[in-house]
């Protein structure tokens, strides 16, 4: 691609990304629809069962022998009556405690006994009434007719319920196959669109692969960043390989965060290039993108201070991460059409999946304010995963965490790398974390590269030791 993104390439990229986003949406759509249908069926079935039981009940009463029936009815009524007395009994006990402080235990005891005796008498009275209503002696057996009628009615209701289930099953399958067919058809079309624009874009940057090796995901070339006389990054060159955890270390003010900001275009580098192999293996120059388009190429980042939205729940915070995947227009959003609802459902399902992966499911409906710092960091990490990243840039992920939390974080970082097939690029002061997770480490000082090597060798490197401990040696 040329120095500036041409209008036409922009158009291709937009078309391709739209197709990709829709493809991502379709991945989960069928399962979400399935869950919706199942929930509706279950609700309907419960309602029908309830109604059937209601219809059968008089028949059942008529068909049971009086001895059994009356016993059951008596027991049921008595349990209900006793349940009603639970709260009054507790109230009496409480009043007794209060009164015993005021008028002495004995007088209060008299009061309590009187009240409790009244309740006991009520139970006895009720039992007598029940005995009269549902006598246990001289009971008659039900006629054969009523028994048969009950059995028949039961069979009918069961058959009706079974028929309903069958019908629903058929309808469900029909609906699902229809949805799946639609999705497949749509996917074929989308894939075609995607391939078309992808190949156009590949042709457009045919000369790029020569410049960037195929296993390199991020290639920073001779980058300079100058803030009014301060050289924050000074001629830095770096390669990050696909699928590795790459650490960036350096003393305070070495320009680490500035470098990150330059990659994600929060700052425009004064000079130099940032080549990046995007989601679709096209080599793009990041300096041609605006800040909010960077995420579409598959770079997601976190911040030194936790930057969550405190007025949204954790789940909604994650859904912000999937912002670029929403295709609903403003009308959909104002009226909450089917399309938006589907998209929200799909996003919610994805968010729940991510939350489960990171062990955050219990926090899904709480506001993040007040949660422990380690959890907040993890939520931010989860939000980056919602953007479908190819490379995650972590700015001091272990800052402010205790040792236990740092260990957990190391596990999570490795897990993310393995399960989401991401490259991870992190800045860190916590050497334990860097040494335990990173495959390669780059040390920089005053914006200049000191060394790139494995963690062990970096520790032994003379230049790095000097940069960190130079003054100590002199003293």
């Amino acid at each position, binding site marked *: 691609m040329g120095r500036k993104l041409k209008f036409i390439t922009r158009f291709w990229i937009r078309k391709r990304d739209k197709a990709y986003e829709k493809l991502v949406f379709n991945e989960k759509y069928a399962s979400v629809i399935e869950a919706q249908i199942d929930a509706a069926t279950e609700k309907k079935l419960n309602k029908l069962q309830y109604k059937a039981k209601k219809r059968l009940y008089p028949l059942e009463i008529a068909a049971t022998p009086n001895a059994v029936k009356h016993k059951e009815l008596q027991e049921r009524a008595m349990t209900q009556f006793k349940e009603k007395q639970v709260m009054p009994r507790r109230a009496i006990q409480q009043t007794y405690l209060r009164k015993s402080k005021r008028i002495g235990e004995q007088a209060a005891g008299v009061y309590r006994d009187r009240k409790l005796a009244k309740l006991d008498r009520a139970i006895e009275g009720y039992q007598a009434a029940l005995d009269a209503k549902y006598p246990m002696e001289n009971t008659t057996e039900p006629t054969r007719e009523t028994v048969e009628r009950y059995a028949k009615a039961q069979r009918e209701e069961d058959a009706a319920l079974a028929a309903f289930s069958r019908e629903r099953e058929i309808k469900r399958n029909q609906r699902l196959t229809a949805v799946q067919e639609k999705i497949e058809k749509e996917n074929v079309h989308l894939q075609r669109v995607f391939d078309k624009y992808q190949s156009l874009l590949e042709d457009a940057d045919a000369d790029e692969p020569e410049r960037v090796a195929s296993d390199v995901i991020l290639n920073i070339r001779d980058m300079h960043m100058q803030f009014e006389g301060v050289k924050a990054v000074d001629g830095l060159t770096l390669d990050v390989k696909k699928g590795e955890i790459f650490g960036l270390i350096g003393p305070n003010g070495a320009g680490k965060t500035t470098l990150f900001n330059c990659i994600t275009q929060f700052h425009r580098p004064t000079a130099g290039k940032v080549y990046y192999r995007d989601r679709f293996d096209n080599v793009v120059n990041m300096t041609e993108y605006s800040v909010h388009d960077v995420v579409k190429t598959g770079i997601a980042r976190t911040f030194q201070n936790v930057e969550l939205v405190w007025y949204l729940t954790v789940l909604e915070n994650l859904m912000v991460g999937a912002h670029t995947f929403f295709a609903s227009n403003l009308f959909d959003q104002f009226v*909450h059409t089917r399309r938006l609802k589907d998209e929200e459902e799909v996003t919610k399902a994805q968010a729940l999946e991510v939350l489960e992966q990171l062990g955050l499911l219990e926090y899904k409906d709480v506001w993040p304010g007040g949660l422990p710092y380690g959890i907040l960091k993890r939520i931010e990490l989860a939000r980056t995963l919602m953007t479908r990243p190819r490379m995650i840039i972590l700015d001091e992920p272990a800052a402010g965490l205790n040792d236990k939390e740092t260990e957990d974080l190391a596990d999570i970082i490795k897990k993310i790398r393995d399960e989401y097939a991401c490259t991870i690029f992190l800045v860190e002061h916590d050497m334990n974390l860097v040494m335990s997770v990173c495959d390669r480490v780059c040390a920089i000082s005053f914006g200049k590269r000191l060394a790139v090597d494995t963690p062990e060798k970096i520790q032994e490197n003379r230049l790095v030791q000097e940069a960190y401990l130079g003054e100590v040696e002199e003293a």
Partner: protein
Amino acid sequence: MKNYYKDLRDKAANPIIKYTRNPLFGYVILALVLVVIQLLFMFTDGIISLTISKAIVQTMIYTIVCLGLSILIGRAGLTSLGTAGFMGLGAYIAGNILKFANLPFIFVVIGTAAAAVILGVVVGFISLRVQGRALLIITLALSEILIELFKTPNEFTGGASGFTGVPFPKLMMFIQLNRETTYFLVLVALFIMIVLTLNIIKSPTGRAMLTMASSPPAAQAMGINLLKYRILAFVIATVYAMIGGALYVAYVQGASPYSWTLLLSLNVLVAVVLGGVGSIPGVIMGSFVIFGLDLAVLKNIAFFQKYTSASVIFSGLLIIIIIIKYPGGLARLLRDINVGVKKLYVKWRVYRYGQEA
């Protein structure tokens, strides 16, 4: 015997719980109360006076305007003092459509909204890179320009003497509304606006605006175009204000340039802040305190009828007390009442029945 199958029933399917948990439940009740009030005004003699009916309509119209500003302030974190100018422009556009074309009201709304979108984009672009106080000044200046244009003599605004002779709107081509039935039109419009606001808040756009307000870098990192959502917030606020203006002109049957002053913008701003930014019940309560309280309640009390300026002093003191007591707005009060009642209930239970086992 009857209780036998009651416990089979799913508790969540209980219709009372189902409906009361619906977010619209409170608004439906409020709307029903307002309908009853107007019906009492129309069909009984003297229980509800015309003043109260007018005051309610006024409060409802300003509530719509406040809702727009509430999205702008509470969701997008931007401010505006241009509300009066935009509302006035909406009133004149709608008034001219009604007066000269006498189209059904839905077309009036569409025409006004279309103009509002254009104006909103312009305002958004003008105030692109400024924040806070600078933004207030820019929107204020824009509003003042508009108001000055209204005052210059021309046939569309009637100059300084005002704009009169607007007929009551027609519904669907043939239903001619009058003063009593326009009340219901405003009520329906308010209800629709509340539903739309609830929807937009609970959608990607609402979340994106909130992210933009609370953490711009995070928003950009998540792919949210700050410029786009900033302009969108202005467009929404402007559309709400201009639709409010259209309803105003339809009910009042005219407009004077002296209704659209800085005081109105400030009142709307105060209503939003008083109610609690970003909260719809708060906005309703805030605009009632600012716009409705005086006309609907205080004018009917003998003391305030005798000393007219006492009502202004009373309102002022009330606002000061609310702001001191509840800096987060009346929405906070509502929540506090809710929490307080629940706490009181728990306390009573412990007193009466002892600790739960």
